[in-house]
């Protein structure tokens, strides 16, 4: 071994380490690959039930819906995903060019307003925007009929918790722009920002309301039940705005099949199962109490404390549009000073 060989040896060693490391994994897959933007804590039992019912094994990638959507976009045609099950319509809408059209029979299980007009994704469960409040500190009947009143200078109930860059809030603002126009939306955001306390996530808002750090928070209806599941005595209540108020937006968790999927048949079985058998899980078993969207499915028990979805149709918004023009929606939220 001469001095000349030594560096070569080290270089070779470096490269070998890289190559050995490189071959250390394998990503070939015969299972159905589900990118799940829904929380593991919530839907893992649902997926286990699916495998038990159908014999189809799932390979699940857990993540936040927007992050998985961004990943699918970046992966393009090479995406390993067969199915994307997203937390909100906006996150699945953003990748609709990469989705295949779903079978008409499946689409028709769900009312038209809760699915993509072009049939590329379909809502599985519904979630309503509400104002969660601390029942020790606030009288429920003192709360306003319209979300727009939260922005009023006369608002007396302290800071309102919002998660300004969370998909659920961004989707709500997009819907506001659709219903009341940009100018009024900006005025609403500016007013809200005067007494808003910002959080990253809805769960943190509900936590802060439960401890009394803030009195009210703008979230989806099911976070209350999630919190009560772990802390049954938390002083929490949901205030529903007027059914037609833009504050009563019904967003959906939604599923779609990638057009590049190599397991189309299994993927369709999965989608169909979510819209039929899976609905029972959401109605009867899940602590979160989301609204099953296929109300014709037999065996659904409706929770008594939950107002029927029919009364909460919310504003008439095309959910497929929630993913459009996000840049301006975010710019408006920023302009109000909500992102600090």
């Amino acid at each position, binding site marked *: *071994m*001469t*001095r000349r*060989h*030594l*560096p*070569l*040896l*080290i*270089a070779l*060693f*470096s*490269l070998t*380490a*890289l190559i050995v*490391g*490189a*071959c*250390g*994994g*394998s*990503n070939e897959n015969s299972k159905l*690959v589900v990118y799940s933007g829904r*929380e*593991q*804590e919530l839907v893992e039992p649902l997926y286990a039930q699916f495998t038990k019912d159908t014999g189809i094994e799932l*390979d*699940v*990638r*857990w*993540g*936040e819906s*927007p*992050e998985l959507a*961004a*990943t699918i*976009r*970046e*992966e*393009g045609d*090479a995406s*390993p995903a067969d199915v994307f099950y997203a937390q909100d319509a906006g996150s699945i809408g*953003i990748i609709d060019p990469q989705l295949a059209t779903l079978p008409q029979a499946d689409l028709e299980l769900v009312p038209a307003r809760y699915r993509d007009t072009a049939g590329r994704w379909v809502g599985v469960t519904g979630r309503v925007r509400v104002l969660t409040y601390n029942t020790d500190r606030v009288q429920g009947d003192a709360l306003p009929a319209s979300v727009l009143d939260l922005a009023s200078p006369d608002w007396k109930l302290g800071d309102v918790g919002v998660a300004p*860059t*969370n*998909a659920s809030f961004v989707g709500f603002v997009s819907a506001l722009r659709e219903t009341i126009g940009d100018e009024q939306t900006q005025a609403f955001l500016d007013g809200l920002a005067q007494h808003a306390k910002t959080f*990253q*996530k809805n*769960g943190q808002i*509900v*936590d*802060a309301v439960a401890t009394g*750090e803030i009195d009210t928070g703008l979230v989806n209806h099911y976070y209350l039940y*999630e919190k009560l599941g772990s802390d049954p005595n938390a002083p929490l209540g949901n205030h529903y705005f007027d059914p037609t108020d833009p504050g009563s937006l019904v967003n959906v968790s939604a599923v779609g099949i990638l057009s590049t999927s190599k397991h189309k048949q299994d993927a369709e079985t999965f989608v169909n199962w979510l819209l039929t058998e899976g609905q029972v899980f959401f109605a009867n078993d899940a602590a979160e109490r989301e609204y099953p969207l296929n109300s014709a499915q037999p065996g659904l028990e409706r929770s008594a404390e939950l107002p029927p979805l029919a009364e909460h149709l919310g504003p008439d918004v095309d959910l497929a549009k929630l993913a459009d023009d*996000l*840049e301006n929606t*975010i710019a408006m939220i*920023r302009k109000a000073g909500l*992102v*600090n």
Partner: protein
Amino acid sequence: MLLLAALPALLIAIAPIVYLVARATAGGGLQSLEVSTIGPATIRTFVLAILVAVGAVGIGVPLAVLTIRTDLPLRRVALVLGALPLVIPSYVGALALLGALGPRGLLAQALEPLGVFRLPTIDGLLGSTIVLVLFTYPYVLLLTAAALRRVDPALEQAARGMGRGSLDTFVRVTLPQIRSAVIAGALLAALYAMSDFGVVSLLRCTTLTREAFLRYDALYDPAGAAAVGLVLAALALLMVGAEQWTVRGSTIAARRRVRARDATTPLELGRTARLGASAFVIMIISLALILPLAILIWWALTLIGDASLLTQLVDALPAAANAIGVSTAAAIVCLVLALPVAALVTRSSGRLPRWIESVSYVGYALPGIVVGLGLVFFAIRTAPFLYQTVALVVLAYVVRLLPQAISGARSGWERVDPRFEQAARGMGRSASGTLFRVTLPLAAPGVLTGAALVVLTAIKELPATLLLRPNGFETPATIIWQKTNVAEYSSAAIPALLLIAISAIPVYFLLIRPEARPHP
């Protein structure tokens, strides 16, 4: 020829910059940057990095001096405990501190009967600074403590012999000799603050890292995230340049290969000074170590009697094994890449190796999400067989943490007197024999320190791990993420404590014990 061996390191160091430039210009990312949003975020990031660096020096240097050079009671214990906050991931630390001192934390609940209702919120730039300082000052402490041990006592004795007082001697003689170590620690703290996401998002301080996340996760725009990353990279290069410029004058003192074996007489603290110093040390250790640990243990204890406690522990164990595996693999790859660079930097006058070292800091200052997105982009287009494999996770850690390995290995090499190598060659040892029998054993402490830092930082990494991991691959950090997402802090406490326990092993043996051992 050694240059050839440094090539892989060069590739890793410039890869992030090539990606950022390519992605930001081709994907329209640069156009999406508005001065009105990026300007304030850049300033905020810069200020945060500077404040964290200053704060870390303000705590780390006094702690090092007190524990190494004075007669402070229990000073070795204080050094060990003072360095241990390094094992607490800053996002876990932030959560725990909020749980203790936040507006509705345990302290507020305890004070409630006394009529104090709402404590001030810890947030924004100030809150983020405080939390980040508490979990980054150990970098400064460890590097400064190591440098203090290498200071030539003869110089100090000479100064005192000439009638200088203790304080005067310290400022004029000792300080210049440890300056480069202090600044290197400050740089690590500053770059850490720049790349941190967990703390600034929890405490609402919109830095560039948070801007990059926002583009990815609310705008579905990886090109925009890359453009923000480019601004961060420029800021990082500015900081590294500033560090090198500041250290320039002191390199001669730092390169002196002295072995401070003669015990320096410890500085005697007077009664009052000893009291003040003890109070300072206790306060820092309480805030940065004891309080967060106590809160985590408190959260974990609420699960006692709960049937899920055991299953959670059982779930967390394989995750811990995963984390140890990938972070060790990353450390090994980092070492292989770093050694030739370290050898070149210390044994040749070429500019390229130094340049590689500086540029590699860019990866360290980038948020995990930007590095992760870059590797998704790279793997999907050029190496699909790598996508969603453990190898890509390891590669992400290597890109981010290579500078830690390089600076560790370099400080190891600097302590090896080239005359030993010449002597070995003169006695007929081959080049490789000299390397393996003489240089490496002598350089080992520094080299292993670098490797330990890589393991320690990689083991708690979250954003890149989430993005690149194979399906079903969990680490304690990913479990903590999943639990805190649904605000289940008790369940997050188990993997957090496990993570802290496994990180404490390399930290104690490779980082703390060598500095805390008594003088021979």
